[in-house]
């Protein structure tokens, strides 16, 4: 649904001879499948928003190619605009007008007739559970309500791809969960969703696949689970009622175990590709050789571990 190759953008900062060129995006190549929720992660200034704005036709790339919903971004941005929706980070509604009026105007700006715009506005209000506040001015809305209006504005024309820039920034946990549900609902309706976020929980819980961008380049791409596995696989903490070194001997010969670490007389750690598939195998080996198992615990590396490995920085530090 979205395919880019070598997308580039640089900016000039300062003036005259003192000015410098900043390469914000140095060649982004990625592919997003239809119906996917794709997360785009990166530290501030990594080129996240610049990439998003290029894909949403707001800035012209300096080079590279992109096809969005079957349309070439560089040669036909007008058609891309018909097929995509974009919701900026801060959102943008006028305080003195109502959600219904905003939605109708947005639909009209997409070229729809007055009657059709009105119909779509009502449908969107319904879908986003905003009907109750529909005729109140936007300035009276809560953060979560405002955010839902923003997203409703972005999808009023039924786009095939939706770009969301930090959709849950600044929302309380409850509104955030509500927003995730909205995004999932849109995907269910067949939309492809491309979101930037710096919340790792969000990327983990919401996104089918993610890409991490750093210094203008993609440094990792895959499902959150794949990326975590790529780092170090899973960790199994095993406690036996007997001799840990004996258990270690037995298990280190198994093909799915990368490494065994004996902690003490009874405890050991196993490094495996996938904990979920390794656990039954480990159980079988230990049972077959008469070592009694005390406990087994699965640890997964977090996305933050992935982020740390790929960018050398932790997202949580900020």
């Amino acid at each position, binding site marked *: 649904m979205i395919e880019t190759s070598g997308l580039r953008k640089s900016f000039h900062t300062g003036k005259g001879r003192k000015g410098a060129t900043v390469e914000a995006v140095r060649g982004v190549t990625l592919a997003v499948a239809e119906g996917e929720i794709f997360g785009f992660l990166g530290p501030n200034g990594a080129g996240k928003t610049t990439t998003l704005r290029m894909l*949403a*036709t*707001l*800035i*012209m790339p300096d080079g590279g190619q992109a096809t969005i919903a079957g349309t070439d971004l560089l040669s036909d941005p*007008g058609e891309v*605009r*018909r097929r*995509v*929706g*974009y919701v*900026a980070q*801060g*959102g*943008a*509604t*006028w305080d*003195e*007008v109502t959600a219904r*009026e905003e939605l109708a*105007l*947005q639909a*009209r*700006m*997409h*070229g729809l007739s007055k009657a059709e715009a009105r119909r779509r506005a009502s449908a969107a209000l319904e879908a986003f559970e905003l009907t109750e506040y529909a005729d109140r*001015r936007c300035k009276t809305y809560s953060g979560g309500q405002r955010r839902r209006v923003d997203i409703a*504005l972005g999808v009023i*024309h039924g786009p095939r791809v939706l770009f969301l820039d930090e959709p849950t920034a600044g929302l309380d946990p409850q509104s955030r969960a509500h927003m995730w549900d909205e995004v999932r609902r849109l995907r269910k309706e067949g939309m492809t969703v491309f979101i930037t976020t710096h919340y790792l929980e969000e990327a983990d819980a919401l996104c089918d696949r993610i890409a991490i961008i750093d210094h203008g380049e993609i440094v990792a791409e895959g499902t959150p689970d794949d990326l975590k596995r790529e780092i170090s696989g899973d960790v199994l903490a095993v406690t036996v009622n007997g001799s840990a070194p004996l258990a270690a001997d037995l298990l280190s010969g198994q093909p799915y175990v990368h490494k065994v670490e004996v902690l003490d007389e009874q405890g050991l750690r196993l490094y495996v590709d996938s904990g979920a598939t390794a656990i039954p195998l480990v159980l079988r080996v230990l049972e077959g050789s008469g070592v009694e198992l005390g406990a087994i615990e699965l640890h997964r590396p977090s996305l933050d571990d992935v982020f740390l490995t790929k960018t050398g920085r932790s997202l949580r530090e900020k």
Partner: protein
Amino acid sequence: MMKLARDTWLIFQRHFLLVLRSPTWIGFALAQPVTYVLLFAPMLKLALKAEGVTTYTQAYRVYVPGLLTVMAILGGSYAGFGLLREVRTGIIERARVTPVSRLALMLGRALREVVMLLVQAVIITLLALPFGLRVPIGDLLLAYLLLALLSIMAVNFSYALTLKVRNEAALGPMINTLSNPLMLLAGVLLPLTLAPLWLLRIAEWNPFYWSTNGMRELFSGHVGASPVWISMIIVVVLAGLALSWSVRSFQRSVQ
């Protein structure tokens, strides 16, 4: 072309609605001109005696056109602030991801400014009637046309300048520094017939000197007087230049 007109109308409607939703804004916009009409203009009958002004009708025919010129130019010059705020808050951006005409985003806003000015002009004119202002309706409409053109010029000049400077703190002083000499040299408060010759010679290079004079001739019912057509030509050209400048800056900055 149809799409441009439709989209411009769409944007205009929204911005007009915003004015209607904030009535206090209208109050503030009118407070100053009304003050001048009520508290300053009555002094002109005596002050302009040397000019041959003997009635309040004559005094208001001198004063109201000058006031309207100030409102068009000064009011229009600050229009860019609103545009810049909308660029920053992302309201323009939200519109830009739709296929709406880029030009309409600007023209619709400019049209709102022009219409608001005309509404204010009508209110001022009506307020001056009890003081004895009398203007033939045809001439008045021509004067409003001249005023609308002045406004188009000022608003678009402001848009272009704002998009270039992009700094509200610098813009205010900049606009004041530019507009004050232009206003004084246009004789908006006192007609330049009172000026010494050297000042008059300078003023003749000021386009707004001509537009103020043209508007005064129209308010006096002298539709055939030369300042009328001279000012029409000057203002049409300037409005056209300002419009093309702002359209180009806008398209460059928003693509």
